[in-house]
C-alpha cells in the first residue's frame, strides 16, 4: 500500500506544479491585427499588479493601457509599425518588479516601460530603466521620489505634496476639522510620503495632529491602533493607504463605534474598498485624479469605449493608464525613432497634451501638475464632490 500511494502522490504533485508554472505566463498581449498592414512591431513593456493585494489597481491600469494601445493600432500604429504591449504581473509583491522589468528590457528588448500604480514598486523598477536608458512612465505613482531616480523616469499624475495639501485643506475647510489623527502604512512609500505632506500642511495651517499610528500593509487587525486613536478624540482621521487595508480599517472603526469622518488619497479608489468595508465606507472622502462624472469630450468617449469593452466604469487608474500609453506613443511618433534617448527628449518636452485626466505638461522634474478631484462614498457608489486646481 505504501509503495503504491507515494508514486501516485508524486505524480499528482508533478502535474500540479506543471499546471501552476504553466499558468504563470505573462498576461494577454495586444490582439494581433492584420500583419500585412504593418512593417514590424514596436514592443512596449508594462508591469502591473494583476494579482495580489493591489490587483484591482493593476487590472484597471492595464485595461486602460491595453485599450489605448488597441485604439492606436486600429488607427494605423506608429511609424508604420504595430504596437505590441507586453505585460508582466508583479503580483503586488516587493522584489518582483525588478525581476520582471529586467526581463522585459533585456530579453524582450522593449523600447519603453509603462507602470506601476504603487510607488514602492515603481521605485524598484525605475533604477533599472534609468541604467538601461529606457524611458519609463509611471501612470499613477504619486510619491515624489519616483521621478527623482533619474532623467528617464516620468509620470503623468500629480504628486503627493500636492495631494497632501489638497486633503489638508479639505479637512480644514470642508470638514471643519481642527485636529486629526493619522494612520499610516509603514510598508508603502506612497503612504509614508502622503502622510508627511498632509501633516506638514495641516500643522502649518494651525491644525493639530493628536495621534499618529501605523500599520503594515497586509495586516488584518487594526483595532488596537483605532482604539488608541479613538481615545485621543480627533475631529477626523486621515488614512493614506491602499483599498484592501483601508476597507478593513473602515469596517473595524465602525465596530469600535468611531463617529468622526475618515478620509484618504487615491489609494482608496477601488470598488473593492466598498465591498470589504460594506456600509462603513458611507460618507467618507478621498482625493483622486479623475471622476467619470467629469464633463470633457475626450473623457466622455473614453468612458463609452471602456464601458463597451470591460462592462464597468473606468476609475482613475484606468484613465491614467490610458493617458500614459497615448503620451508615450505620441512621443515615439514625434521622435520618429524607437531609440531610448530620443523618446526621452520628446517626452521631456510634452506640453498641453489633452488626455482623459486633463491637460498634461511635463515639467523639468518630469512631474505633472494636474487638478485633483474629491470623491465621497454614497449608497455604495463613488460620487464627485469637487475639483481642486493646483
Amino acid at each position, binding site marked *: 500500500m*505504501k509503495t503504491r*500511494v*507515494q508514486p501516485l*502522490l508524486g505524480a499528482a*504533485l508533478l502535474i*500540479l506544479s506543471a*499546471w*501552476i508554472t504553466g*499558468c504563470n505566463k505573462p498576461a494577454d498581449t495586444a490582439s494581433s491585427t492584420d500583419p500585412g498592414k504593418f512593417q514590424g512591431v514596436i514592443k512596449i513593456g508594462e508591469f502591473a499588479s494583476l*494579482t*495580489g*493585494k493591489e*490587483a*484591482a489597481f493593476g487590472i484597471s491600469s492595464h485595461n486602460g493601457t491595453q485599450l489605448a494601445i488597441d485604439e492606436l493600432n486600429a488607427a494605423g500604429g506608429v511609424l508604420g509599425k504595430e504596437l505590441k504591449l507586453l505585460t508582466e504581473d508583479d*503580483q503586488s509583491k516587493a522584489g518582483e518588479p525588478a525581476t520582471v522589468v529586467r526581463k522585459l528590457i533585456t530579453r524582450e528588448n522593449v523600447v519603453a516601460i509603462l507602470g506601476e500604480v504603487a510607488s514602492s514598486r515603481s521605485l524598484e523598477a525605475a533604477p533599472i530603466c534609468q541604467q538601461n536608458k529606457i524611458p519609463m512612465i509611471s501612470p499613477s505613482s504619486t510619491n515624489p521620489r519616483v521621478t527623482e531616480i533619474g532623467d528617464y523616469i516620468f509620470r503623468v499624475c500629480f504628486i503627493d505634496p500636492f495631494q497632501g495639501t489638497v486633503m489638508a485643506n479639505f479637512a480644514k475647510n470642508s470638514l471643519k476639522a481642527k485636529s486629526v489623527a493619522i494612520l499610516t502604512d*509603514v510598508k508603502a512609500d506612497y503612504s509614508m510620503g502622503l502622510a508627511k505632506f498632509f501633516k506638514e500642511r495641516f500643522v502649518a495651517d494651525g491644525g493639530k495632529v493628536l495621534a499618529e*499610528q*501605523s*500599520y*503594515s500593509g497586509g*495586516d*488584518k*487587525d487594526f*483595532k*488596537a*491602533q483605532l*482604539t*488608541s486613536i*479613538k*481615545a485621543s478624540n480627533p475631529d477626523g482621521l486621515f488614512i493614506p493607504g491602499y483599498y*484592501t487595508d483601508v*476597507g*478593513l480599517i473602515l*469596517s*473595524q472603526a*465602525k*465596530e*469600535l*463605534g468611531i463617529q468622526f469622518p475618515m478620509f484618504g488619497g487615491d489609494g482608496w479608489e477601488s470598488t*473593492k474598498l466598498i*465591498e*470589504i468595508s*460594506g456600509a462603513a465606507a458611507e460618507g467618507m472622502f478621498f482625493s483622486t485624479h479623475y471622476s467619470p462624472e467629469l464633463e470633457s469630450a475626450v473623457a466622455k468617449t473614453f468612458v463609452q469605449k471602456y464601458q463597451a469593452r470591460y462592462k464597468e466604469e473606468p476609475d482613475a487608474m484606468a484613465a491614467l493608464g490610458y493617458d500614459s500609453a497615448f503620451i508615450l506613443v505620441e512621443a515615439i511618433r514625434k521622435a520618429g525613432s524607437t531609440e531610448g534617448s530620443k523618446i526621452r527628449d520628446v517626452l521631456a518636452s510634452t506640453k498641453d497634451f489633452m488626455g482623459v485626466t486633463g491637460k498634461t505638461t511635463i515639467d523639468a522634474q518630469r512631474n505633472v501638475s494636474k487638478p485633483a478631484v474629491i470623491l465621497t462614498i454614497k449608497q455604495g457608489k463613488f460620487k464627485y464632490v469637487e475639483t481642486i486646481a493646483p
Partner: protein
Amino acid sequence: MVEFLQQLINGLALGSIYALIALGYTMVYGVLRFINFAHSDVFMVGAFCGYYASKSASPFLASGTVTAAIVVLLAAMGVCALLGMIIERLAYRPLRERSKLTVLITAIGVSLLMEFTGQLVFGADPKSFRLLPSKNLQLTGGVVFNTNQVVVLGLTVVLLLALQAIVLKTRIGTAMRAVSFNHRAAALMGINIDMVISFTFGLGSALAAAAGILYAISYPSIDPLMGVMPGLKAFVAAVLGGIGNIPGAAIGGLLIGVIETMVSGYVSSTYRDAIAFAVLILILLFKPTGLLGQTSVEKV
C-alpha cells in the same frame, strides 16, 4: 481605563482565534510528535469553504441570519475535517515510520502546495466575505462590544469545552490520550492507531475551519495566503502554552492576542511581532516546556 478595557476586549477576540488554531497544532503534536505546518492552510480553506457555502446557500437560506451562519460553519468544519484526514492519509501516513524531519519537510511542502493551489483555484486577490451583520453594544463608560466579538469569544469557549469533553470523557478521547502517551503500547492494547490519528487530524482541522470562519467574521477580507501569519502566531501560542497541552494552547493563544494588541495600541505596531516573539523567547528561556507543558524524558 476605558481604553485599556477596550484593548483587552480587542486582544481577547484576536487571541481566541489564535487559540482555536493552536489547538490543532497541539493535538497533532500530542499524538504524532510533529508540527503539521499545513494546519494554517486548512484554516484558510475553512474560510473559503465558508465563503462558497454561504454563496451557494443564499437561495435557500436568507444570508445574514444565525441559521445560515450555523449551516455555513458546520459545512466548512465538515469539509475541512475531511481535508485534514485526506492530508494525513496521503502525505503523512506513508512517512510515519520515517524520521521526524522527513515528515516536517513534507508538511511544509503540503502547506506551500495548498497556498499556491489556493491562489490558482480561488484567485490571488482578496475576497470580501460577510457572514453576519454586526451591531455595536455600548457598555457603561464608553467601552464598545461588537456582536461579532461576542460571537467569536462565545464560540471559542463552546468549542474549547466541547473539545475538552471529547478528550476527557469519550472512548475515542481516551484512545487519543493513550496514543499520545505511547504508540506501541496503545496498539498492543487493541487501539486502532490509524483511526485515532485520522480522528485527531479531522478534529483539529474542523477547529481550524471554525477559526477560519471566525477570522473572516472579524476581518471580512480573505485570500489564499491569509493563513500564513495567524498560523505562525498560533504555532507560537501552542509552544508558549506547552505544546501537546490543550488548555496550554488556549492560554497561549489568548496571551499572544492580548500582547499583540497592547503593543500596537500603546507602543507601535511596527514592534508588534518583535515584542510578541521576544516574550516567547523569554518564557522559553525560563520555562523551556512552555507555561503548562510537562517535562518529558527523552528515551534514547
